[in-house]
């Protein structure tokens, strides 16, 4: 009872400042249209604010990932503003919904470029989204673009900087580890779109270079939910390691059928490189016991990395609920992207695109989720630490970590 009263008195009462703040927010929302959010800095200065645009999937099929990206951006920008902004100027955040739909996205991103005239755009989660919006941003928009998601690589367009892991980063250390802990006979069941095709091309090279063998590589329609045929192939060909890139909705039934067929029971190793905390709940924990993944961050890293622990705690405090801070949904890439860009702008001393791009080309941060990160000069991709984690009773346990920062080997 007491607690309830305490809560009530602590609740913000309506005062002039509060009204003004919400009026400003509402005004922004109305002026910018549906699907747009403008978050003004808490302080203003004589200098005009720096405008950061976030284009991400707040709604639609991958809304859970897009919202995590927007949350991270709000958190990082708040921190930067609290620390005095960049070049003495506060940052104003413009968030546009790309709605998991490329045609909606192009129109909304155009708003960021043409109406809001942002200084940089971060966002896009799927490769198809990046391809849809990149031209609007860098070619016609003459703006810098930072892409935060793990992806298949090969994005070498000038002024596009990628801060998520590439196939090399996800395979170079992980596949030898899988071979040591699972075996040499690999199966590559995959969803039929660009990321699995190019990732598997790279994975096959690493497998064969290390003396392994790819028993089969097969692609399924994105919405296939029945996997008895591939599961049978895996079982009858004595496959040691399943390295899968099947995505939802298929991945849950696939793992279930594999488990029912007794793959893990006979010692088979399961791996899936986009598996993070968000995907753990697709299956019952026993069905994916022992599943290995390789990403730039897992929540389990916070146990022995104080910087990751601090970032994770800050996120959890500001955004409690179902939208998780995880590597598979580009949230960590978003963090790195914003921080690297901050460093670059500070070095360049101005917001001119070429000057910032030149500084971003070799930008480094010493603190980030999972560890430090640095851009590889001339490559516009990011070196970072990589972790190999295994699912144990519904949580991850880190079993291996890269010595230093892993090279993206792109461009």
């Amino acid at each position, binding site marked *: 009872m007491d607690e309830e009263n305490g809560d009530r008195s602590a609740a913000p009462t309506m005062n002039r400042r509060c009204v003004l703040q919400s009026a400003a927010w509402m005004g922004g929302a109305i002026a910018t249209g549906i699907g747009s959010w403008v978050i003004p800095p808490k302080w203003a200065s004589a200098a005009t604010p720096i405008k950061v645009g976030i284009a991400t999937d707040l709604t639609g099929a991958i809304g859970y990932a897009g919202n995590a990206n927007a949350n991270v951006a709000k958190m990082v920008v708040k921190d930067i503003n609290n620390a005095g902004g960049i070049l003495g100027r506060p940052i104003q955040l413009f968030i546009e919904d790309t709605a998991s739909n490329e045609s909606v996205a192009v129109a909304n991103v155009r708003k960021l470029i043409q109406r809001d005239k942002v200084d940089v755009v971060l966002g896009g989660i799927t490769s198809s989204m990046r391809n849809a919006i990149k031209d609007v941003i860098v070619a016609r928009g003459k703006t810098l673009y930072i892409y935060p998601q793990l992806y298949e690589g090969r994005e070498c367009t000038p002024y596009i900087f990628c801060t998520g892991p590439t196939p090399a980063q996800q395979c170079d250390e992980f596949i030898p580890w899988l071979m040591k802990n699972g075996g040499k006979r690999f199966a590559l069941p995959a969803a039929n779109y660009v990321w699995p095709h190019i990732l598997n091309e790279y994975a096959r090279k690493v497998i064969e270079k290390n003396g392994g063998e790819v028993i089969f590589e097969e692609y399924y329609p994105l919405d*296939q939910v029945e996997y*008895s045929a*591939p599961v049978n192939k895996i079982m009858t060909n004595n496959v040691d390691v399943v390295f899968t890139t099947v995505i939802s909705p298929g991945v849950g039934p696939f793992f279930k059928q594999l488990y029912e067929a007794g793959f893990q029971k006979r010692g088979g190793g399961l791996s899936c490189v986009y598996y993070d905390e968000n995907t753990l709940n697709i299956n019952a924990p026993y069905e994916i016991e022992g599943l290995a993944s390789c990403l730039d961050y897992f929540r389990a890293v916070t146990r022995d990395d104080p910087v990751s622990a601090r970032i994770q705690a800050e996120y959890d405090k500001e955004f409690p609920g179902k939208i998780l801070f995880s590597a598979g949904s580009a949230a960590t890439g978003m963090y790195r992207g914003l921080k690297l860009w901050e460093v670059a702008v500070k070095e360049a001393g101005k917001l001119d695109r070429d000057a910032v791009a030149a500084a971003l080309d070799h930008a480094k941060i010493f603190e980030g989720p999972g560890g430090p990160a640095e851009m590889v000069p001339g490559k516009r991709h990011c070196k970072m630490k990589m972790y190999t984690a295994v699912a144990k009773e519904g949580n991850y346990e880190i079993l291996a970590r890269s010595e230093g920062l892993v090279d993206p080997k792109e461009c």
Partner: protein
Amino acid sequence: METALNATFEVLSFGAIIVLVVLGLGIVASMMGIFNFAHGEFVLLGAYTTYLVYSAGLPVWAGMLVAPVVVAACGFVLERLVIRRFYATPIAAMLATYALGLVIRESVRGLIGGLYVSVPEPLVGSLIIGGVRLPKWRLAIVIITALVMVGSYLLLARTSFGLRVRAALENPSLARASGISTNAIYAATFTFGAALAGLAGALVVPLFSLSADLGVRFLIQGFLAVMLGGVGTFEGPVAGGALIGVMSAALPWAVAPVLADVLVFVIAIAFVKFRPGGLIAARRL
């Protein structure tokens, strides 16, 4: 030999799943002349109800018992509020049900945070008979599907309620003149179809995990099944469902999976070209 038997069971069980999903859709399409585009979302609602009951700490099977009732109630309310206004215009009815489906799907997406959630099977593990591995829950689905199918058939073909349903479809004015409230019959039929969808969702959610798009995939396969089987009979959509399910599960054993997906459609369309009425065209029952 064992592989062949295993394959047969897997193919059969997926066939049963599609039949289960198609049953409600087929009954509403055949007995009311309405293509319910929200059917996939009724399946989703059944799955979601099961998940809610389970996450409240009750056993999964309790959720599966509650789900058809809850979805039937939703179906009844929607029929009274929306669907009944569109009986004269089946095309507009498709749009209306599509809109309803969209609202349900996006609401569920919001409620579960856009993620995939696993719901455990009430029966875990497999029976191994003569080297053939039969996952218990898939076996249970095959049996329940058979029972529901027979039950629905008897209800429509052998009871006086079934007779009135068919009368209301054949000749609504004559049915009304004979003292049958077609209004009430339509409401009851739609509610029944929704209950079947709810049951289907509840039974299949342990296999496919709960997500907002659970119903979408089944909707497309369901329509293909109804088209292939023929509208107007009870057996048509069921036979179509069985055929589509068996084809989509069996073809990947023989050809590349990406090709198999397309092949199912090609075969279905070619078939309808030569037999426009579908597998079972006559209006008997």
